[in-house]
Protein backbone atom coordinates (compact mmCIF):
# COMPACT_ATOMS: atom_id res chain seq x y z
CA UNK A 1 0.00 0.00 0.00
CA UNK A 2 2.81 2.31 0.91
CA UNK A 3 4.59 1.41 -2.28
CA UNK A 4 1.56 2.26 -4.35
CA UNK A 5 1.21 5.53 -2.51
CA UNK A 6 4.77 6.41 -3.30
CA UNK A 7 4.46 5.39 -6.93
CA UNK A 8 1.27 7.37 -7.33
CA UNK A 9 2.86 10.44 -5.80
CA UNK A 10 5.88 10.06 -8.04
CA UNK A 11 3.64 9.83 -11.10
CA UNK A 12 1.77 12.99 -10.21
CA UNK A 13 5.02 14.79 -9.59
CA UNK A 14 6.35 13.60 -12.93
CA UNK A 15 3.32 14.93 -14.76
CA UNK A 16 3.64 18.27 -13.01
CA UNK A 17 7.31 18.42 -13.91
CA UNK A 18 6.63 17.48 -17.53
CA UNK A 19 4.14 20.30 -17.91
CA UNK A 20 6.45 22.79 -16.22
CA UNK A 21 9.34 21.71 -18.39
CA UNK A 22 7.23 22.33 -21.47
CA UNK A 23 6.46 25.81 -20.17
CA UNK A 24 10.13 26.54 -19.52
CA UNK A 25 11.10 25.28 -22.96
CA UNK A 26 8.37 27.42 -24.42
CA UNK A 27 9.70 30.45 -22.60
CA UNK A 28 13.19 29.74 -23.85
CA UNK A 29 11.88 29.29 -27.37
CA UNK A 30 9.57 32.27 -27.61
CA UNK A 31 10.18 34.72 -24.83
CA UNK A 32 13.90 34.77 -24.14
CA UNK A 33 15.34 35.50 -27.58
CA UNK A 34 15.33 39.13 -28.55
CA UNK A 35 13.64 38.30 -31.82
CA UNK A 36 11.87 34.96 -31.61
CA UNK A 37 10.66 35.01 -35.19
CA UNK A 38 14.15 35.61 -36.51
CA UNK A 39 15.50 32.92 -34.23
CA UNK A 40 12.97 30.47 -35.58
CA UNK A 41 13.72 31.19 -39.20
CA UNK A 42 17.46 30.87 -38.87
CA UNK A 43 20.47 32.95 -39.77
CA UNK A 44 20.06 35.81 -42.25
CA UNK A 45 16.28 35.93 -42.31
CA UNK A 46 14.53 38.06 -44.87
CA UNK A 47 11.76 40.42 -43.90
CA UNK A 48 9.07 38.24 -45.50
CA UNK A 49 10.36 35.19 -43.68
CA UNK A 50 10.17 37.01 -40.38
CA UNK A 51 6.65 38.19 -41.07
CA UNK A 52 5.58 34.74 -42.12
CA UNK A 53 7.08 33.25 -38.99
CA UNK A 54 5.42 35.85 -36.82
CA UNK A 55 2.03 34.84 -38.11
CA UNK A 56 2.79 31.13 -38.09
CA UNK A 57 4.01 31.18 -34.53
CA UNK A 58 1.27 33.51 -33.49
CA UNK A 59 3.72 35.91 -31.95
CA UNK A 60 1.23 38.73 -32.04
CA UNK A 61 -1.08 36.77 -29.78
CA UNK A 62 -1.09 36.80 -26.00
CA UNK A 63 1.38 34.43 -24.39
CA UNK A 64 -1.02 31.78 -23.20
CA UNK A 65 -2.52 31.42 -26.65
CA UNK A 66 0.97 30.99 -28.01
CA UNK A 67 1.67 28.37 -25.42
CA UNK A 68 -1.47 26.45 -26.29
CA UNK A 69 -0.57 26.47 -29.97
CA UNK A 70 2.93 25.32 -29.08
CA UNK A 71 1.61 22.43 -27.01
CA UNK A 72 -0.91 21.55 -29.66
CA UNK A 73 1.89 21.32 -32.18
CA UNK A 74 3.94 19.12 -29.91
CA UNK A 75 1.15 16.71 -29.23
CA UNK A 76 0.57 16.42 -32.95
CA UNK A 77 4.23 15.62 -33.36
CA UNK A 78 5.08 18.87 -35.05
CA UNK A 79 8.25 20.13 -33.49
CA UNK A 80 9.09 22.49 -36.27
CA UNK A 81 11.43 22.12 -39.17
CA UNK A 82 15.15 22.09 -38.97
CA UNK A 83 16.76 25.01 -40.69
CA UNK A 84 19.73 22.91 -41.71
CA UNK A 85 18.34 19.55 -42.73
CA UNK A 86 15.02 20.98 -43.88
CA UNK A 87 13.30 17.96 -42.42
CA UNK A 88 10.64 17.92 -39.77
CA UNK A 89 12.54 17.75 -36.54
CA UNK A 90 10.60 14.76 -35.29
CA UNK A 91 11.85 12.73 -38.26
CA UNK A 92 15.40 13.78 -37.57
CA UNK A 93 15.06 12.82 -33.94
CA UNK A 94 13.68 9.41 -34.83
CA UNK A 95 16.66 8.86 -37.09
CA UNK A 96 19.28 9.86 -34.60
CA UNK A 97 17.86 8.68 -31.28
CA UNK A 98 18.66 4.94 -31.61
CA UNK A 99 22.31 5.74 -32.26
CA UNK A 100 22.58 7.71 -29.05
CA UNK A 101 20.65 5.09 -27.10
CA UNK A 102 22.92 2.36 -28.36
CA UNK A 103 25.98 4.31 -27.33
CA UNK A 104 24.69 5.10 -23.86
CA UNK A 105 23.57 1.54 -23.23
CA UNK A 106 26.92 0.18 -24.36
CA UNK A 107 28.68 2.62 -22.07
CA UNK A 108 26.54 1.61 -19.10
CA UNK A 109 27.13 -2.05 -19.82
CA UNK A 110 30.89 -1.53 -19.80
CA UNK A 111 30.60 0.51 -16.63
CA UNK A 112 28.65 -2.20 -14.83
CA UNK A 113 30.83 -5.06 -16.02
CA UNK A 114 34.05 -3.30 -15.10
CA UNK A 115 33.03 -0.99 -12.30
CA UNK A 116 31.04 -3.20 -9.97
CA UNK A 117 33.46 -6.13 -9.65
CA UNK A 118 36.34 -3.70 -9.21
CA UNK A 119 34.39 -1.93 -6.51
CA UNK A 120 33.64 -5.22 -4.77
CA UNK A 121 37.26 -6.35 -4.82
CA UNK A 122 38.46 -2.93 -3.79
CA UNK A 123 36.10 -2.78 -0.84
CA UNK A 124 36.93 -6.29 0.24
CA UNK A 125 40.66 -5.67 0.20
CA UNK A 126 40.60 -2.26 1.71
CA UNK A 127 44.00 -0.67 2.03
CA UNK A 128 45.70 -3.04 -0.35
CA UNK A 129 47.56 -2.06 -3.48
CA UNK A 130 44.57 -3.10 -5.57
CA UNK A 131 42.40 -0.83 -3.49
CA UNK A 132 44.65 2.18 -3.94
CA UNK A 133 45.03 1.58 -7.65
CA UNK A 134 41.30 1.18 -8.08
CA UNK A 135 40.57 4.34 -6.15
CA UNK A 136 43.03 6.17 -8.33
CA UNK A 137 41.27 4.85 -11.42
CA UNK A 138 37.88 5.84 -10.08
CA UNK A 139 38.89 9.37 -9.18
CA UNK A 140 40.62 9.80 -12.49
CA UNK A 141 37.47 8.51 -14.12
CA UNK A 142 35.22 11.11 -12.62
CA UNK A 143 37.68 13.92 -13.27
CA UNK A 144 38.66 13.11 -16.79
CA UNK A 145 36.96 15.28 -19.35
CA UNK A 146 35.26 12.92 -21.76
CA UNK A 147 36.54 14.74 -24.77
CA UNK A 148 40.15 14.38 -23.73
CA UNK A 149 39.77 10.69 -23.14
CA UNK A 150 38.06 10.26 -26.49
CA UNK A 151 40.93 11.98 -28.23
CA UNK A 152 43.50 9.95 -26.35
CA UNK A 153 41.75 6.70 -27.18
CA UNK A 154 41.61 7.69 -30.83
CA UNK A 155 45.27 8.57 -30.79
CA UNK A 156 46.27 5.33 -29.19
CA UNK A 157 44.02 2.74 -30.75
CA UNK A 158 43.66 4.26 -34.16
CA UNK A 159 46.79 6.15 -34.87
CA UNK A 160 49.35 4.11 -33.03
CA UNK A 161 47.89 0.65 -33.07
CA UNK A 162 45.63 0.84 -36.08
CA UNK A 163 43.27 -1.56 -34.32
CA UNK A 164 40.05 0.35 -34.09
CA UNK A 165 38.30 2.79 -36.39
CA UNK A 166 38.25 6.53 -35.95
CA UNK A 167 34.53 7.12 -35.84
CA UNK A 168 31.10 6.60 -37.33
CA UNK A 169 29.05 3.51 -36.69
CA UNK A 170 29.95 1.32 -39.62
CA UNK A 171 32.68 1.32 -42.21
CA UNK A 172 31.51 2.28 -45.66
CA UNK A 173 32.46 -1.07 -47.19
CA UNK A 174 30.44 -3.01 -44.72
CA UNK A 175 27.42 -0.74 -44.92
CA UNK A 176 27.40 -1.17 -48.68
CA UNK A 177 28.15 -4.85 -48.87
CA UNK A 178 26.29 -6.09 -45.79
CA UNK A 179 23.65 -3.54 -44.95
CA UNK A 180 21.84 -3.99 -41.68
CA UNK A 181 18.10 -4.44 -41.64
CA UNK A 182 16.48 -1.96 -39.35
CA UNK A 183 14.70 -3.54 -36.44
CA UNK A 184 15.46 -1.33 -33.47
CA UNK A 185 17.83 1.06 -35.15
CA UNK A 186 20.64 -0.14 -32.93
CA UNK A 187 23.22 -1.71 -35.16
CA UNK A 188 24.63 -4.18 -32.68
CA UNK A 189 21.23 -5.59 -31.79
CA UNK A 190 19.89 -5.53 -35.32
CA UNK A 191 22.88 -7.23 -36.87
CA UNK A 192 22.82 -9.91 -34.20
CA UNK A 193 19.10 -10.45 -34.66
CA UNK A 194 19.38 -10.80 -38.41
CA UNK A 195 22.47 -12.99 -38.33
CA UNK A 196 24.59 -10.43 -40.13
CA UNK A 197 27.86 -11.33 -38.43
CA UNK A 198 30.15 -9.26 -40.62
CA UNK A 199 28.21 -6.15 -39.77
CA UNK A 200 28.00 -7.20 -36.13
CA UNK A 201 31.77 -7.37 -35.84
CA UNK A 202 32.20 -4.09 -37.65
CA UNK A 203 29.59 -2.28 -35.57
CA UNK A 204 31.12 -3.62 -32.37
CA UNK A 205 34.55 -2.37 -33.35
CA UNK A 206 33.09 1.03 -34.05
CA UNK A 207 31.20 1.31 -30.82
CA UNK A 208 34.00 0.16 -28.56
CA UNK A 209 36.03 3.35 -28.22
CA UNK A 210 33.18 5.83 -27.86
CA UNK A 211 31.42 3.58 -25.36
CA UNK A 212 34.63 3.24 -23.40
CA UNK A 213 35.13 6.99 -23.33
CA UNK A 214 31.54 7.43 -22.22
CA UNK A 215 31.89 4.77 -19.55
CA UNK A 216 34.76 6.32 -17.62
CA UNK A 217 32.63 8.55 -15.46
CA UNK A 218 30.08 5.83 -14.60
CA UNK A 219 32.93 3.41 -13.92
CA UNK A 220 34.46 5.85 -11.49
CA UNK A 221 31.11 6.37 -9.83
CA UNK A 222 30.29 2.65 -9.70
CA UNK A 223 33.63 1.81 -8.13
CA UNK A 224 33.27 4.45 -5.45
CA UNK A 225 29.71 3.54 -4.54
CA UNK A 226 30.22 -0.21 -4.59
CA UNK A 227 33.41 0.10 -2.61
CA UNK A 228 31.97 2.20 0.20
CA UNK A 229 28.82 0.14 0.57
CA UNK A 230 30.88 -3.05 0.44
CA UNK A 231 33.03 -1.77 3.29
CA UNK A 232 29.94 -1.06 5.34
CA UNK A 233 28.27 -4.36 4.58
CA UNK A 234 31.37 -6.46 5.17
CA UNK A 235 31.46 -5.22 8.74
CA UNK A 236 28.10 -6.72 9.52
CA UNK A 237 27.77 -9.71 11.74
CA UNK A 238 26.13 -11.98 9.25
CA UNK A 239 29.19 -11.79 7.06
CA UNK A 240 31.38 -12.94 9.90
CA UNK A 241 28.91 -15.67 10.65
CA UNK A 242 29.02 -16.81 7.04
CA UNK A 243 32.80 -16.88 7.10
CA UNK A 244 32.90 -18.96 10.24
CA UNK A 245 30.45 -21.48 8.82
CA UNK A 246 32.90 -22.09 6.02
CA UNK A 247 31.22 -20.49 3.04
CA UNK A 248 33.72 -19.72 0.31
CA UNK A 249 35.01 -16.16 0.31
CA UNK A 250 34.04 -15.63 -3.27
CA UNK A 251 30.44 -16.62 -2.59
CA UNK A 252 30.33 -14.33 0.40
CA UNK A 253 31.60 -11.41 -1.58
CA UNK A 254 29.66 -11.72 -4.75
CA UNK A 255 26.44 -13.19 -3.47
CA UNK A 256 25.74 -12.16 0.11
CA UNK A 257 27.53 -8.86 0.38
CA UNK A 258 26.84 -7.65 -3.12
CA UNK A 259 23.12 -8.27 -2.85
CA UNK A 260 22.95 -5.91 0.08
CA UNK A 261 25.29 -3.38 -1.37
CA UNK A 262 23.56 -3.25 -4.71
CA UNK A 263 20.82 -0.73 -4.00
CA UNK A 264 22.85 2.43 -3.47
CA UNK A 265 24.99 1.35 -6.35
CA UNK A 266 21.98 1.04 -8.62
CA UNK A 267 20.96 4.48 -7.48
CA UNK A 268 24.32 5.86 -8.44
CA UNK A 269 24.21 4.03 -11.73
CA UNK A 270 20.86 5.59 -12.46
CA UNK A 271 22.46 8.96 -11.98
CA UNK A 272 25.35 7.88 -14.15
CA UNK A 273 22.97 6.80 -16.89
CA UNK A 274 21.28 10.16 -17.05
CA UNK A 275 24.66 11.85 -16.90
CA UNK A 276 25.72 9.74 -19.85
CA UNK A 277 22.91 11.15 -21.92
CA UNK A 278 24.61 14.50 -21.79
CA UNK A 279 28.14 13.12 -21.91
CA UNK A 280 27.15 11.38 -25.10
CA UNK A 281 26.81 14.77 -26.77
CA UNK A 282 30.51 15.42 -26.51
CA UNK A 283 31.57 11.88 -27.35
CA UNK A 284 29.39 11.86 -30.43
CA UNK A 285 31.09 14.97 -31.70
CA UNK A 286 34.54 13.50 -31.25
CA UNK A 287 33.75 10.18 -32.83
CA UNK A 288 31.43 11.52 -35.52
CA UNK A 289 28.73 9.30 -34.12
CA UNK A 290 25.48 10.20 -35.88
CA UNK A 291 23.29 10.58 -32.84
CA UNK A 292 21.26 13.30 -31.17
CA UNK A 293 24.35 14.87 -29.64
CA UNK A 294 25.94 15.42 -32.99
CA UNK A 295 22.62 16.72 -34.28
CA UNK A 296 22.35 19.29 -31.51
CA UNK A 297 25.97 20.37 -31.86
CA UNK A 298 25.58 20.94 -35.56
CA UNK A 299 22.43 22.87 -34.78
CA UNK A 300 24.39 25.09 -32.45
CA UNK A 301 27.08 25.69 -35.02
CA UNK A 302 24.56 26.59 -37.70
CA UNK A 303 22.35 28.50 -35.27
CA UNK A 304 19.44 26.15 -35.86
CA UNK A 305 17.39 27.36 -32.95
CA UNK A 306 14.25 25.21 -33.49
CA UNK A 307 16.38 22.09 -33.31
CA UNK A 308 18.13 23.17 -30.14
CA UNK A 309 14.87 23.87 -28.38
CA UNK A 310 13.08 20.76 -29.59
CA UNK A 311 15.91 18.41 -28.79
CA UNK A 312 16.16 19.95 -25.33
CA UNK A 313 12.49 19.28 -24.81
CA UNK A 314 12.60 15.72 -26.08
CA UNK A 315 15.73 14.75 -24.20
CA UNK A 316 14.38 16.31 -21.03
CA UNK A 317 11.15 14.37 -21.34
CA UNK A 318 13.22 11.26 -21.82
CA UNK A 319 15.36 12.15 -18.83
CA UNK A 320 12.29 12.66 -16.64
CA UNK A 321 10.74 9.38 -17.74
CA UNK A 322 13.93 7.47 -17.09
CA UNK A 323 14.27 9.04 -13.62
CA UNK A 324 10.67 8.11 -12.93
CA UNK A 325 11.31 4.56 -14.05
CA UNK A 326 14.43 4.28 -11.89
CA UNK A 327 12.60 5.65 -8.86
CA UNK A 328 9.78 3.17 -9.28
CA UNK A 329 12.24 0.36 -9.84
CA UNK A 330 14.06 1.30 -6.69
CA UNK A 331 10.79 1.40 -4.76
CA UNK A 332 10.03 -2.11 -5.97
CA UNK A 333 13.44 -3.44 -4.97
CA UNK A 334 13.79 -1.68 -1.66
CA UNK A 335 10.55 -0.42 -0.14
CA UNK A 336 12.49 1.51 2.47
CA UNK A 337 12.93 4.40 0.06
CA UNK A 338 9.21 4.99 0.11
CA UNK A 339 9.44 6.16 3.68
CA UNK A 340 10.78 9.57 2.75
Amino acid sequence: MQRLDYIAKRLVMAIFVLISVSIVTFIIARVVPSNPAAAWVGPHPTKEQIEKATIELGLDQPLYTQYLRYMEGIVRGDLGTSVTTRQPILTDIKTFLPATLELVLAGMLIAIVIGIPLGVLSGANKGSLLDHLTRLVSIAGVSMPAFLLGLLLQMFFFRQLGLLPLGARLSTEVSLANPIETVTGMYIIDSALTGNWVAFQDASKHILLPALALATYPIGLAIRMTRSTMIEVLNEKYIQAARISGIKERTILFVLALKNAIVPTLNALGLAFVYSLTGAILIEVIFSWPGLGNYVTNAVLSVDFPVIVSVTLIMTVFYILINLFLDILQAMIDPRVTLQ
Partner: protein
Amino acid sequence: MTTAISDLEVSIDEIPERKRISEYRLMWNAFRRDPLALLSIFILFVFILGAIFAPFLTPYPEQGLGDPNILEKFSPPSLQHPLGTDYLGRDVTARILYGGRSSLAIGFLVVFVAVIIGVPLGAISGFYGGWIDNLIMRITDIFLAFPPLLLAIALAAALGSNFINTMIAISFTWWPWYARLVRSQTLSLRERSFIEAARSIGVPDWKIITTHVLPNVMTPVMVQATMDLGSAILIGAAVSFIGLGVQPPTADWGTMISVGRIYFLERPWYAGSAGIAIFLVVLAFNLLGDAVRDAADPRTRRAVDIGR
Protein backbone atom coordinates in the same frame (compact mmCIF):
# COMPACT_ATOMS: atom_id res chain seq x y z
CA MET B 1 39.90 2.38 50.68
CA THR B 2 38.73 5.86 51.19
CA THR B 3 40.53 8.97 50.27
CA ALA B 4 39.98 12.09 52.25
CA ILE B 5 38.57 14.87 50.21
CA SER B 6 41.33 17.10 51.40
CA ASP B 7 43.80 14.86 49.57
CA LEU B 8 42.07 15.62 46.31
CA GLU B 9 42.23 19.33 46.65
CA VAL B 10 43.86 21.05 43.79
CA SER B 11 44.34 24.72 43.65
CA ILE B 12 42.36 26.48 40.96
CA ASP B 13 45.48 28.07 39.65
CA GLU B 14 47.02 24.73 38.84
CA ILE B 15 44.39 23.63 36.35
CA PRO B 16 45.92 24.23 32.94
CA GLU B 17 43.98 26.53 30.62
CA ARG B 18 42.73 24.94 27.45
CA LYS B 19 41.86 27.06 24.46
CA ARG B 20 38.43 26.43 23.00
CA ILE B 21 39.04 24.62 19.73
CA SER B 22 36.65 25.59 17.00
CA GLU B 23 35.34 23.06 14.51
CA TYR B 24 37.18 24.80 11.71
CA ARG B 25 40.44 24.52 13.59
CA LEU B 26 40.00 20.78 13.91
CA MET B 27 39.20 20.54 10.25
CA TRP B 28 42.22 22.54 9.28
CA ASN B 29 44.50 20.38 11.41
CA ALA B 30 43.18 17.20 9.85
CA PHE B 31 43.39 18.75 6.44
CA ARG B 32 46.98 19.83 6.83
CA ARG B 33 48.15 16.29 7.23
CA ASP B 34 46.48 14.85 4.17
CA PRO B 35 49.07 14.63 1.41
CA LEU B 36 46.50 14.45 -1.38
CA ALA B 37 44.84 17.61 -0.10
CA LEU B 38 48.11 19.47 -0.10
CA LEU B 39 48.91 18.20 -3.58
CA SER B 40 45.57 19.44 -4.90
CA ILE B 41 46.04 22.84 -3.30
CA PHE B 42 49.42 23.06 -4.92
CA ILE B 43 48.06 22.20 -8.36
CA LEU B 44 45.24 24.70 -8.00
CA PHE B 45 47.62 27.38 -6.80
CA VAL B 46 49.74 26.90 -9.88
CA PHE B 47 46.80 27.22 -12.25
CA ILE B 48 45.07 30.06 -10.45
CA LEU B 49 48.20 32.14 -10.09
CA GLY B 50 49.06 31.30 -13.66
CA ALA B 51 45.72 32.62 -14.81
CA ILE B 52 45.87 35.79 -12.74
CA PHE B 53 49.44 36.70 -13.60
CA ALA B 54 49.30 35.43 -17.17
CA PRO B 55 50.56 38.62 -18.82
CA PHE B 56 53.71 38.52 -16.72
CA LEU B 57 54.38 34.83 -17.03
CA THR B 58 54.66 34.51 -20.75
CA PRO B 59 56.86 36.28 -23.26
CA TYR B 60 53.91 36.35 -25.65
CA PRO B 61 51.02 38.13 -23.93
CA GLU B 62 49.53 39.46 -27.16
CA GLN B 63 49.32 35.98 -28.56
CA GLY B 64 47.59 34.86 -25.41
CA LEU B 65 45.01 37.50 -26.09
CA GLY B 66 44.61 36.44 -29.66
CA ASP B 67 47.15 37.96 -32.01
CA PRO B 68 48.11 35.49 -34.67
CA ASN B 69 51.66 34.62 -35.59
CA ILE B 70 51.14 32.84 -38.85
CA LEU B 71 54.78 32.33 -39.63
CA GLU B 72 55.16 29.87 -36.88
CA LYS B 73 51.88 28.12 -37.13
CA PHE B 74 51.74 24.58 -35.92
CA SER B 75 55.23 24.31 -34.60
CA PRO B 76 55.76 21.41 -32.28
CA PRO B 77 57.03 22.02 -28.74
CA SER B 78 60.39 23.72 -28.77
CA LEU B 79 62.53 25.91 -26.58
CA GLN B 80 60.82 29.15 -27.56
CA HIS B 81 57.37 27.58 -27.40
CA PRO B 82 57.38 24.91 -24.70
CA LEU B 83 53.95 23.63 -25.66
CA GLY B 84 54.14 24.42 -29.33
CA THR B 85 51.97 26.80 -31.30
CA ASP B 86 48.42 26.57 -32.47
CA TYR B 87 46.77 26.83 -35.86
CA LEU B 88 47.34 30.58 -35.92
CA GLY B 89 50.87 30.34 -34.62
CA ARG B 90 50.06 31.51 -31.14
CA ASP B 91 52.11 30.16 -28.28
CA VAL B 92 50.12 27.40 -26.63
CA THR B 93 51.49 28.03 -23.15
CA ALA B 94 50.26 31.59 -23.35
CA ARG B 95 46.88 30.39 -24.58
CA ILE B 96 46.63 27.95 -21.70
CA LEU B 97 47.48 30.63 -19.16
CA TYR B 98 44.97 33.05 -20.62
CA GLY B 99 42.47 30.28 -21.17
CA GLY B 100 42.65 29.54 -17.49
CA ARG B 101 41.18 32.97 -16.85
CA SER B 102 38.05 32.13 -18.78
CA SER B 103 37.66 28.52 -17.71
CA LEU B 104 38.48 28.97 -14.04
CA ALA B 105 36.43 32.13 -13.78
CA ILE B 106 33.35 30.39 -15.12
CA GLY B 107 33.75 27.61 -12.58
CA PHE B 108 34.12 29.95 -9.62
CA LEU B 109 31.37 32.31 -10.70
CA VAL B 110 28.89 29.55 -11.41
CA VAL B 111 29.36 27.97 -8.00
CA PHE B 112 29.37 31.36 -6.32
CA VAL B 113 26.06 32.38 -7.91
CA ALA B 114 24.55 28.98 -7.28
CA VAL B 115 25.46 29.19 -3.60
CA ILE B 116 24.25 32.77 -3.25
CA ILE B 117 20.89 31.85 -4.72
CA GLY B 118 20.48 28.30 -3.51
CA VAL B 119 21.57 28.54 0.11
CA PRO B 120 19.19 31.30 1.27
CA LEU B 121 16.31 29.78 -0.67
CA GLY B 122 16.98 26.41 0.88
CA ALA B 123 17.23 27.89 4.36
CA ILE B 124 13.97 29.79 3.97
CA SER B 125 12.31 26.76 2.50
CA GLY B 126 13.41 24.47 5.32
CA PHE B 127 12.82 26.96 8.08
CA TYR B 128 9.32 28.11 7.26
CA GLY B 129 7.92 25.03 5.65
CA GLY B 130 4.38 25.31 4.40
CA TRP B 131 3.56 26.90 1.08
CA ILE B 132 6.91 28.65 0.70
CA ASP B 133 8.65 25.34 1.09
CA ASN B 134 6.32 23.73 -1.42
CA LEU B 135 6.74 26.52 -3.94
CA ILE B 136 10.52 26.56 -3.75
CA MET B 137 10.73 22.79 -3.91
CA ARG B 138 8.51 22.64 -7.01
CA ILE B 139 10.73 25.18 -8.69
CA THR B 140 13.84 23.17 -7.88
CA ASP B 141 12.11 20.05 -9.20
CA ILE B 142 11.58 21.77 -12.52
CA PHE B 143 15.16 22.87 -12.88
CA LEU B 144 16.52 19.56 -11.71
CA ALA B 145 14.44 17.82 -14.35
CA PHE B 146 16.58 19.21 -17.16
CA PRO B 147 19.77 17.42 -18.11
CA PRO B 148 22.26 20.08 -17.01
CA LEU B 149 24.23 20.47 -20.18
CA LEU B 150 21.12 20.74 -22.34
CA LEU B 151 19.49 23.48 -20.32
CA ALA B 152 22.75 25.41 -20.37
CA ILE B 153 22.96 24.97 -24.13
CA ALA B 154 19.37 26.01 -24.74
CA LEU B 155 19.68 29.09 -22.53
CA ALA B 156 23.02 30.07 -23.97
CA ALA B 157 21.65 29.66 -27.48
CA ALA B 158 18.67 31.85 -26.65
CA LEU B 159 20.65 34.51 -24.81
CA GLY B 160 23.63 34.69 -27.09
CA SER B 161 27.08 33.21 -26.60
CA ASN B 162 29.35 35.13 -24.37
CA PHE B 163 30.93 34.73 -20.99
CA ILE B 164 28.19 36.25 -18.85
CA ASN B 165 25.35 34.42 -20.55
CA THR B 166 27.13 31.11 -20.30
CA MET B 167 27.68 31.72 -16.63
CA ILE B 168 24.03 32.59 -16.10
CA ALA B 169 22.89 29.58 -18.09
CA ILE B 170 25.00 27.12 -16.11
CA SER B 171 24.19 28.69 -12.72
CA PHE B 172 20.52 28.21 -13.50
CA THR B 173 21.05 24.49 -13.55
CA TRP B 174 23.22 24.43 -10.48
CA TRP B 175 21.46 26.33 -7.70
CA PRO B 176 18.71 23.74 -7.06
CA TRP B 177 21.26 21.30 -5.62
CA TYR B 178 22.26 23.79 -2.97
CA ALA B 179 18.69 24.70 -2.17
CA ARG B 180 17.89 21.03 -1.62
CA LEU B 181 21.00 20.41 0.44
CA VAL B 182 20.48 23.39 2.71
CA ARG B 183 16.79 22.65 3.05
CA SER B 184 17.33 19.14 4.36
CA GLN B 185 20.01 20.37 6.75
CA THR B 186 17.71 23.15 7.94
CA LEU B 187 14.84 20.74 8.47
CA SER B 188 16.85 18.65 10.90
CA LEU B 189 18.26 21.74 12.55
CA ARG B 190 14.86 23.26 13.10
CA GLU B 191 13.88 20.71 15.68
CA ARG B 192 16.84 21.36 17.89
CA SER B 193 16.19 23.00 21.19
CA PHE B 194 18.44 25.98 20.73
CA ILE B 195 16.32 27.13 17.83
CA GLU B 196 13.20 26.69 19.90
CA ALA B 197 14.83 28.59 22.73
CA ALA B 198 15.77 31.46 20.49
CA ARG B 199 12.28 31.72 19.10
CA SER B 200 10.71 31.62 22.50
CA ILE B 201 12.67 34.58 23.74
CA GLY B 202 11.56 36.51 20.73
CA VAL B 203 14.58 36.52 18.45
CA PRO B 204 13.31 37.56 15.00
CA ASP B 205 13.24 34.79 12.39
CA TRP B 206 15.74 36.35 10.03
CA LYS B 207 18.22 36.64 12.87
CA ILE B 208 17.77 33.00 13.79
CA ILE B 209 18.39 32.00 10.22
CA THR B 210 21.50 34.07 9.80
CA THR B 211 23.14 33.46 13.13
CA HIS B 212 22.06 29.93 13.98
CA VAL B 213 20.95 28.07 10.90
CA LEU B 214 23.35 29.23 8.21
CA PRO B 215 26.65 28.74 10.07
CA ASN B 216 25.63 25.19 10.88
CA VAL B 217 24.74 24.21 7.36
CA MET B 218 27.87 25.69 5.85
CA THR B 219 30.03 22.61 6.24
CA PRO B 220 28.18 20.33 3.82
CA VAL B 221 27.78 23.30 1.52
CA MET B 222 31.53 23.82 1.56
CA VAL B 223 32.19 20.20 0.72
CA GLN B 224 29.68 20.24 -2.11
CA ALA B 225 30.93 23.56 -3.45
CA THR B 226 34.53 22.38 -3.58
CA MET B 227 33.64 19.34 -5.62
CA ASP B 228 31.25 21.34 -7.75
CA LEU B 229 33.99 23.73 -8.72
CA GLY B 230 35.53 20.91 -10.70
CA SER B 231 32.27 19.91 -12.33
CA ALA B 232 31.39 23.51 -13.13
CA ILE B 233 34.69 23.96 -14.94
CA LEU B 234 34.01 20.74 -16.83
CA ILE B 235 30.56 21.84 -17.91
CA GLY B 236 31.87 25.28 -18.81
CA ALA B 237 34.46 23.62 -21.01
CA ALA B 238 31.77 21.42 -22.55
CA VAL B 239 29.61 24.43 -23.42
CA SER B 240 32.60 26.17 -25.00
CA PHE B 241 33.49 22.97 -26.80
CA ILE B 242 30.09 22.94 -28.44
CA GLY B 243 30.63 26.50 -29.52
CA LEU B 244 28.38 28.42 -27.17
CA GLY B 245 30.79 29.84 -24.67
CA VAL B 246 33.32 32.55 -25.11
CA GLN B 247 34.07 33.24 -28.72
CA PRO B 248 37.46 33.38 -30.39
CA PRO B 249 39.89 35.06 -30.20
CA THR B 250 39.42 34.87 -26.43
CA ALA B 251 41.30 31.90 -25.10
CA ASP B 252 39.33 29.17 -23.38
CA TRP B 253 40.28 25.57 -22.70
CA GLY B 254 37.04 24.20 -24.10
CA THR B 255 37.30 26.05 -27.39
CA MET B 256 40.93 25.03 -27.65
CA ILE B 257 39.95 21.40 -27.53
CA SER B 258 37.14 21.87 -29.98
CA VAL B 259 39.34 23.59 -32.53
CA GLY B 260 42.41 21.53 -31.85
CA ARG B 261 40.69 18.19 -32.10
CA ILE B 262 40.66 18.29 -35.87
CA TYR B 263 44.45 18.38 -35.89
CA PHE B 264 44.81 16.19 -32.87
CA LEU B 265 46.16 13.04 -34.43
CA GLU B 266 49.05 14.82 -36.12
CA ARG B 267 49.57 17.70 -33.74
CA PRO B 268 48.33 16.75 -30.32
CA TRP B 269 49.96 19.49 -28.31
CA TYR B 270 47.20 22.04 -28.75
CA ALA B 271 44.09 20.15 -27.77
CA GLY B 272 46.13 17.89 -25.53
CA SER B 273 47.48 20.66 -23.30
CA ALA B 274 44.04 22.16 -22.86
CA GLY B 275 42.56 18.77 -22.08
CA ILE B 276 45.26 17.95 -19.56
CA ALA B 277 44.85 21.36 -17.95
CA ILE B 278 41.14 20.71 -17.47
CA PHE B 279 41.85 17.21 -16.20
CA LEU B 280 44.39 18.38 -13.62
CA VAL B 281 42.20 21.17 -12.31
CA VAL B 282 39.10 18.97 -12.04
CA LEU B 283 41.13 16.20 -10.43
CA ALA B 284 42.55 18.66 -7.92
CA PHE B 285 39.09 19.93 -7.00
CA ASN B 286 37.75 16.41 -6.63
CA LEU B 287 40.62 15.37 -4.38
CA LEU B 288 40.23 18.58 -2.44
CA GLY B 289 36.52 18.01 -2.01
CA ASP B 290 37.16 14.48 -0.78
CA ALA B 291 39.73 15.79 1.67
CA VAL B 292 37.44 18.54 2.94
CA ARG B 293 34.69 16.00 3.43
CA ASP B 294 36.96 13.62 5.28
CA ALA B 295 38.23 16.45 7.45
CA ALA B 296 34.75 17.77 8.22
CA ASP B 297 33.21 14.49 9.29
CA PRO B 298 34.32 13.72 12.82
CA ARG B 299 34.00 10.03 12.12
CA THR B 300 36.50 9.98 9.30
CA ARG B 301 38.72 12.67 10.66
CA ARG B 302 41.79 10.85 11.80
CA ALA B 303 42.81 11.35 15.39
CA VAL B 304 44.54 14.68 15.48
CA ASP B 305 46.57 16.45 18.04
CA ILE B 306 44.39 19.04 19.68
CA GLY B 307 46.83 21.79 18.89
CA ARG B 308 48.49 23.70 21.67
